[in-house]
């Protein structure tokens, strides 16, 4: 009974949060609206790719292609239907479902042949598929060629975006908890063994791939309607790479990780818009400090086996030393005429993003959450431990 009520609670809370989110952010600016919408879409994309790459252990690097299929389906649909229909309230959810179906079909067509094979072939096939889709979009008059097409109505349904994300998370999580899901994990751990145990490996892989593609397609439809315009450039290969990075950085296989990494990685480049300009000398001192800190922290994480507290102490210490290095070096380095040129903050956005990626990967290759998940039980045990300490009951 506790289990059941917990689940109901989770569902209710999630839905309530989605609705509240929409109602709560009205007062914020369009910028924040768009950010929240895009963050939600990236969560869906990352979690759905996690279903393919993390949970089933495949290697797809062209997820943006299905995102694009969904977006363009919604775009073409919007151009075809009568304006009166597209103004109806249920139109966007309906378009979302149709786009999901379209993307699922694409996923099936791409996945079936390549998933029969072992090795990294899915990677190259999905990447190729992404290119093919982009090129088709760039050449078809009906798809607006390189310019793109307007999608009406332009409607930022933030509640729907986040509801989709929640559904995506729920589906992934429930998969892990039931028998069908266990076959997915089995395929990830050992294809040969699982097929010997009677698992239809190809079917499991294709199912996961189609499911992931469908969610990406649904996200694409919401993107198209949220922005009101789709163009091939919005789905370039680096979008695929960023989604992939979110999955790996969160911890391949961890839904919680994917979700958090999606929000984080989406937020970092946006936050970097406020970077201040600085001299090259200053930049150099930061780089030196960064290299030092990363080297120390990497060493501590890999080779030092002291207590957690000591580890943390050393890390904090090294960060302090890093700050000291910056403050010592920045004056003399900035005064060197050759290093005196100013680098504009806005141009360093992508660089900072790239550096963050590399550093995070070096320091924690298994991803932020590795394969752990957030759950009520975990929260409960945490609370209980806390309570016990407080009341003083011996464990």
């Amino acid at each position, binding site marked *: 009974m506790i289990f059941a009520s917990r689940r109901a609670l989770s569902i209710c809370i999630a839905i309530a949060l989605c609705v509240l989110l929409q109602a709560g952010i009205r007062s914020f600016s369009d910028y924040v*609206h768009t*950010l929240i919408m895009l963050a939600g879409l990236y969560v869906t994309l990352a979690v759905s790719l996690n279903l393919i790459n993390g949970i089933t252990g495949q290697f797809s690097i062209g997820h943006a292609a299905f995102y694009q299929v969904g977006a363009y389906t919604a775009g073409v649909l919007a151009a075809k239907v009568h304006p009166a229909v597209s103004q109806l309230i249920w139109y966007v959810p309906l378009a979302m479902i149709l786009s999901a179906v379209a993307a699922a079909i694409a996923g099936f067509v791409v996945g079936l042949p390549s998933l029969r094979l072992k090795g990294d072939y899915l990677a190259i096939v999905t990447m190729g598929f992404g290119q093919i889709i*982009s090129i088709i979009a760039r050449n078809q008059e009906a798809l607006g*060629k390189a*310019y793109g097409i307007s999608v009406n*109505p332009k409607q930022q349904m933030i509640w729907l975006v986040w509801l989709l994300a929640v559904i995506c998370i729920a589906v992934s999580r429930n998969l892990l908890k039931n028998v069908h899901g266990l076959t997915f994990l089995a395929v990830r751990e050992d294809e040969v063994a699982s097929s010997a145990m009677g698992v239809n490996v190809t079917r499991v892989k294709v199912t996961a791939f189609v499911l992931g593609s469908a969610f990406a397609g649904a996200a694409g439809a919401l993107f198209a309607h949220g922005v009101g*315009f789709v163009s091939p450039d919005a789905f370039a290969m680096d979008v695929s790479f960023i989604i992939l990075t979110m999955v790996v950085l969160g911890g391949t296989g961890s839904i919680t990780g994917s979700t958090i990494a999606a929000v984080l990685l989406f937020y970092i480049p946006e936050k970097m818009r406020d970077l201040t300009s600085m001299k090259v000398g200053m930049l150099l001192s930061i780089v030196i400090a960064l290299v030092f800190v990363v080297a120390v922290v990497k060493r501590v994480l890999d080779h030092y086996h002291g207590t957690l507290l000591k580890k943390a102490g050393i890390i904090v210490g090294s960060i302090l030393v890093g700050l000291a290095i910056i403050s010592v070096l920045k004056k003399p380095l900035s005064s060197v005429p050759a290093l005196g040129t100013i680098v504009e903050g806005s141009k360093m956005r992508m660089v900072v993003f790239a550096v963050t990626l590399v550093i995070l990967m070096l320091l924690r290759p298994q991803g932020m959450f590795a394969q752990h998940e957030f759950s009520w039980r975990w929260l409960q045990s945490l609370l209980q431990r806390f309570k016990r300490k407080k009341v003083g009951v011996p464990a």
Partner: protein
Amino acid sequence: MRVFDKNNIRHLALAVVSAALLVGCNGGDSKTDETGNGGGGKSSATAGRKAPTAAPIDAQGPTIKIGLVASVTGDNKPWGDDSKEGAQLAVDEFNAAGGMDGKKIEMVLGDSASKPEQAKTAAEKLMSDGCIALVGEVSSGNTIQMAKAAFDKGIAVVAVGATRTDLTDEGSHVFRVCYTDAFQGPVMAKFLFDKLNKKTVAIMTDNHLPYSQGLSKSFKETFEKLGGKVVAEKAYESGGTQAPNYSGQLTEIKSANPDAMFCSGYFTEVGPMAQQARQAGIKAVLLGGDGWDSDKLLTSGGDAILGSFFCNHYNNADNRPQVTDFLKKWKAVPAHNGKNPDTTMGALGYDAMALTLDALKRAGKANSKAIIDALEATEKYPGVSGDITLKGMNGNPPKRAIVVSVTAKGPDGSWQKFAKDYTPDQIK
């Protein structure tokens, strides 16, 4: 009694979801744009453009903020950088002249990384920072995103180099300082047919660029209407997946024996293409649009590009006072090392920002709606790239286009030779 058995849960969940859908629908309509305009672009020529309905915004704080969205990173960096430098020049000049009622102008830069999606978030960020007008983007694909975002807020968008024709249909808040593809394509077609007496042409289009596709299309239409023949149409892709090797396409063009070849892409691709064309034995005269304008064309095109013609907004060798003034100011900026702008976007960026500031001055108050009205009322604004009139023009100023030929670099650094100018009336 078990209230929460499995079936009950399912029903409950269903009920909650449907309830949420209803609630969401009723509560979630805060941002609906009911009258989106199609991308087809045939609508608004006579009917007038749809006007934004958002409440006007006044400038807050000690400075007046104007936003600039520019591709200062990514594929379009050479153009984005120039547009930024030009706009900065205009702002500095305006501030040096006393600013607006004692208030200085602050230009806030938003990087679009040459990507449409980021152009949108950049524009929204700038608006949430309190910018009362937006200047920007050198490419049409990015500008449309800005226009969509700015429509909801009723903030003016002054495009720098977005020549896509139907762009300004987005709403009455969109203006531009350049001419459109529907103008420069026909200019080159007419020049080729009438002045160079060439009757067959091959067209090379960069499929990566909306700009190139639009230009090729309008060129082809006019050239065929005049009685010329397009003997080959080939495409390539800049950036992305295609290696900059055009020998395949050029071999096919060679076998079609055109008298001329129209390359509607950017100079970065046209240069090597010209050399490869000569290598493939194509002797046809080459023509192109304003995307050619950079003296890097000479290094990348070598001898092969000399004697070609392209359409430009203005000419550095022009002796109009605006041009000489602008170039003098540009060269005086220390970071420019006494060189002319690399691309036309320097002058257009300057024009776009200067025009916006001029509109601000004419409006008399730092208010978003007032700026739109003042921009719409612009008549014969003397820009570097020519006189700009926006009154009753749906945001598309009728401007003069000049055709220049590419010559070897002279001692003063000039390399464009004026050939012929066209006014919009001559094209109609």
